């Protein structure tokens, strides 16, 4: 079985991702100016948007990997789809928690059933179910195929979630509009650095997670050859 991301380039990438996340922390906490109306609590926005972006992007990668798996039947695409769901779900949960922390002082509530929050809840539920589905199917080929189909069908929730604040009246802020954004230049720089840093972190985690799965496949094969 082939391996991905072993060697110097991978180690360099992990290091780079770590440095980038530290830089992003500095940009969000120190570099970015204090927002006039909300104060320091607004700084959570840099994590919130960056993790949201990574979560959405990770589910998009799962969609692509799922289609690729159905077309080729190659195990590596199944591994990418699964790994990306796990990482995406982690980021989406961070996005939800940071959003909730921000909402408490600003909206005066942790949670409200408005369109964006509702669609996010549905999306989290779908990808949690994706992981559950994989556990109840024994035959690995069938597991991969069913998961791929669910990874494709479930992705429909992602654009709906993304568009929710644009389609419906909602109290959730819309930063990126077709007319431009509501951000000062320094804030925009901090945001771009955060998004880039967490994207790098995603790539680095995806490499580690897929590699882990390849190794576990190899270990299983070795174990089987011992049994014979």
């Amino acid at each position, binding site marked *: 079985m082939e391996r991905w991301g072993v060697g110097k380039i991978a180690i360099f990438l992990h290091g780079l991702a770590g440095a980038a996340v530290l830089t992003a922390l500095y940009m969000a906490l120190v570099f970015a100016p204090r927002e006039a109306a909300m104060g320091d609590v607004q700084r959570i926005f840099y994590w919130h948007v960056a993790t949201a972006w990574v979560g959405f992007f990770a589910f998009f990668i799962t969609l692509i990997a799922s289609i690729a798996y159905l077309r080729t039947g190659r195990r590596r695409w199944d591994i990418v789809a699964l790994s990306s769901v796990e990482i995406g779900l982690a980021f989406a949960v961070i996005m939800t928690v940071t959003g909730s922390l921000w909402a408490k002082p600003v909206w005066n509530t942790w949670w409200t059933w408005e369109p964006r929050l509702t669609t996010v809840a549905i999306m989290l539920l779908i990808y949690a179910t994706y992981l559950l589905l994989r556990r109840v199917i*024994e*035959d*690995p*080929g069938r597991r991969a195929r069913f998961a791929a189909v669910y990874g494709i069908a479930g992705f429909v929730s992602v654009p709906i979630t993304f568009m929710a604040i644009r389609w419906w009246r909602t109290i959730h802020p819309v930063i990126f509009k077709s007319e431009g954004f509501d951000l000062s230049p320094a804030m925009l720089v901090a945001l771009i650095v955060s998004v880039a840093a967490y994207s790098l972190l995603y790539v680095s985690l995806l490499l580690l997670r897929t590699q882990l799965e390849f190794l576990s496949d190899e270990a*299983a*094969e070795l174990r*089987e050859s011992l049994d014979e």
Partner: protein
Amino acid sequence: MKGQVERWPAVEARGISKAFGRYRVLRGVDLRIQPGEFVALLGPNGAGKTTFLRILATLSRPSEGRAWINGQPLDGDTRRVRQQIGLVSHQTFLYGDLTAEENLRFYGRLYRVPALEERIAELLQRVGLYERRHDPVRTFSRGMQQRLSIARAVLHDPPVLLLDEPDTGLDQQAARMLRELLSLMGAEQRTILMTTHQLERAREMSTRVAILAGGQIRWDSPTAHLSTAELAEAYMELVERRPANALPGASA
């Protein structure tokens, strides 16, 4: 591509392997069956007989290897292949709530059988169920259901018939009737591949016996001058030497 001069083998399998995750059930099965042959495929439980038949029946995709039915590949457009095969398994593929006639009519429509009603009547008479044609299949005995299942499998007159332990769960009388029916089908110049684990029956009915053990065809012989004792000896040696590993779900 081979020349058309030579007749295509009815069934040809080359290096068929199938793995369910880490369980490798088939490890390169090679088998070539000429038109009109009746091959009995023997092997212990879990040897992959059912898996092999399901691959030939287009119900399962091999992990490696290729197979052809009458020269048509199983990995291309399988619709034409499916028109040429009939499968009788220990599952009947029949709807319990529909009558014998309705079951055949349903499958006949999907196979686009010409002059369907005449064909149904003819087959029901041949399997001795014409009088019961308006009864729901649920009320049939196991043997009657298996007879109807054979009628269903030959409804579209397939040149190749795959039989997966067709006598499992049948009593003596039903099993004898089944055998008579099957030899009748063989007499029509159909190619038959039947899995079984009953050596005596395999030798009696078939023109050739093959043994599947350890995921490969390990023994292959015409039955004409074969005694049951010889067959039993070969079978025991292969099966004893390589005990069937427990393969959960592999024989389903």
